[in-house]
């Protein structure tokens, strides 16, 4: 499943062919062997579910009251989706999940645990302004608001677009995009978490 589901006003905020997302998802998901949610929107509601959530948007699991396998991320890493499907094809079962439905093989560790800048964190070497000497030297982005310590995902290892880049590699703090309700829980993004 892709995308969040509008639930306010009987789902009127989102329609395809005159039918609400809610109606369509209810019909389709109930027949499925397993429901895999790809992306933070279908997993947990995503950006449109951020406060005050005008459309009453919800992740698929919550909107339909079913258990789903969640591959969150904004964007989700295709490697994690393919890994989940291959797991099913080869072993005949879904991978082990954490308490918010994420496969442990991909979401078992935090960004902070896997981060190549971790030694700078331990040595108190922090970036305090973008474009600075410290930024050029690849110091830790914690003080710029990095949410790596609170975010479970494998971005530092698999990266994006066939290993071409990833946020902290590009000098930008992690925004925590694979965590439920991160738009509210992690914001403001450029302020260090306590």
């Amino acid at each position, binding site marked *: 499943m892709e995308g969040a589901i509008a639930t306010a006003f009987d789902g*009127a905020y989102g329609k395809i*062919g005159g039918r609400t997302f809610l109606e369509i998802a209810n019909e389709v998901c109930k027949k499925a062997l397993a429901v895999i949610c790809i992306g933070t929107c279908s997993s947990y509601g995503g950006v449109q579910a*951020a406060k*005050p959530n005008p*459309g009453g948007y919800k992740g698929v699991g919550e909107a339909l009251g079913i258990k789903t396998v969640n591959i969150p991320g904004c964007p989700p890493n295709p490697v994690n989706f393919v890994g989940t499907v291959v797991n099913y094809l080869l072993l005949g079962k879904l991978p082990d999940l954490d308490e918010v439905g994420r496969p442990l093989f991909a979401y078992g560790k935090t960004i902070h645990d896997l981060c190549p800048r971790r030694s700078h964190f331990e040595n108190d070497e922090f970036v305090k302004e973008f474009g600075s000497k410290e*930024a*050029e030297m690849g110091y830790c982005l914690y003080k710029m608001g990095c949410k790596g310590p609170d975010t479970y995902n494998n971005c530092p290892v698999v990266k*994006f677009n066939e290993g071409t880049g990833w946020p902290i590699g590009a000098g930008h703090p992690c925004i925590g995009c694979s965590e439920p309700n991160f738009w509210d829980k992690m914001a403001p993004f450029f302020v260090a978490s306590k």
Partner: protein
Amino acid sequence: MAERINIDPITRIEGHLRIEVEIENGKVKNAWSSGQMFRGLEIILRGRDPRDAPLITQRSCGVCTLVHYLASVRAVEDAVKVQIPPNARIIRNLLHGSQFQHDHIVHFYHLHALDWVDIVSALKADPQKTAALADNVSNAPWGGTVYYKQVQQRLKTFVESGQLGPFNNGYWGHPAYQLPPEANLMAAAHYIEALRLQAKAAKMHAIFGAKNPHLQSLVVGGVTCVQDLTPDRIAEFLYLWKETQDFIKNVYIPDVLVVAGFYKDWGKIGGTTNFLAWGDFPESEKEPDSLFMPRGVIMKRDLKAVKMAEQDKVVESVAHAWYKGSDALHPYKGVTEPEHGDYDPNKKYSWFKAPRYEGEPCEVGPLARVLVAYAYGKKEIKEVVDDVLKKLSLPVEALFSTLGRTAARAIETLVIGQAMERWIMELVENLKKGDKKTYQSWQMPDKAQGIGLNDVPRGSLGHWIEIEGGKIKNYQYVVPSTWNLGPRCGKGKPGPVEEALIGTPVADPKRPIEILRTVHSFDPCIACGVHVVDPDSNQVYEIKVI
């Protein structure tokens, strides 16, 4: 007797769109365009940290993933009054240029081509003749009889399995398809090659922008990717750029010319009247003067009267949109108070507001940009436009059409792509001089207003922000698809797509491919069933297209 047909959803686009048309004597008499989704991001933005706005608005769409990010960061920069360093400007232009290359290739091959190219007819093609045709018209790096035999075999397997995959449920065999089998086979092969190419093109974003979709390296004041300003990263970018630009030059442009040659009558169908471009790609600090794609507005198709476009002349009307009231307000005063009602073309029928410039609807996008640049006599654009028109033996007037829109998209991809090489070299020169500055610090004001005007693959995009107490007080954005696909305004004037559809011939109301051609030519950014309603019998035919 007028017949009404409803196409909902329109597919091969991003998002949820419904088009209703009334057909009389085989032609569209009236049309209504309706956005079918509301997410309320403008409401979500209120009260948040202005620095977070770019990250939130970026999620408006996963296709043109850079554009709201860029527009929003520019709006906040305008509010906090910070001038970004030249290196940051160049990197943003390079990321934006690669967005054009990526988006327009995907649009032509994967979203639009199947309106013109009959995949099933490709099975009847002679591979040897196809190879000869391809050699004659393009400089594609692949080809030959064996290659085309293999592509044809793949298509055959698809068709015989009954699972056409991405080619499922097209209007194959429709009389409106004009290409000979060989041209169809060549285009089908290029469709597959373009799939590979676009994944490579997306990597350009990942080099200076961390990832695609949803880049993550722009911040208010500049860019964060200072560690990527190294020879190896720049060379990686240059290599991907070259491969993409070669495809545009040697495959995309020749393919558009071949297809256009068989559909010249579409140079008279699907035109609109007014055109607006905010322009983009600043080549110095001086904006709008330094914009590579210039800013301007053309009214009533009068190219000679092209003039500078001013943001304060924009209002958005909610008279026919599912929002409270019927006002037409400037974005700074804009309110977003949703009020969903029934779909009623005489009253309210869309989640889109209706933007107007000096009270008039305006088409935005590739055609508007190319016309504005052409009207100003911009050399790079004029040369290519004149060359394309000459090769097709078509007059300038043919630009005001569905065909013109599709050609303009290819033309600007080539021209912008070419400019990127210069920008890369400019960056290299700066680095040689020891200038690695990528960020300018700034202070958050207590109260401020800011505007970000941009021109992005689908058209003119404006973001307006109001800051109070260091937080977002109001945020409005007027996006290309709202300009193009918006509903009627208070004065009852139809939006550009509604206007463009009027007069379109429809051979078979049950298979309205002609309507899809014009709607898709706007590259709507808004999924798979066509509902055709016959008002006499009240029968609803359901036909799926992709």
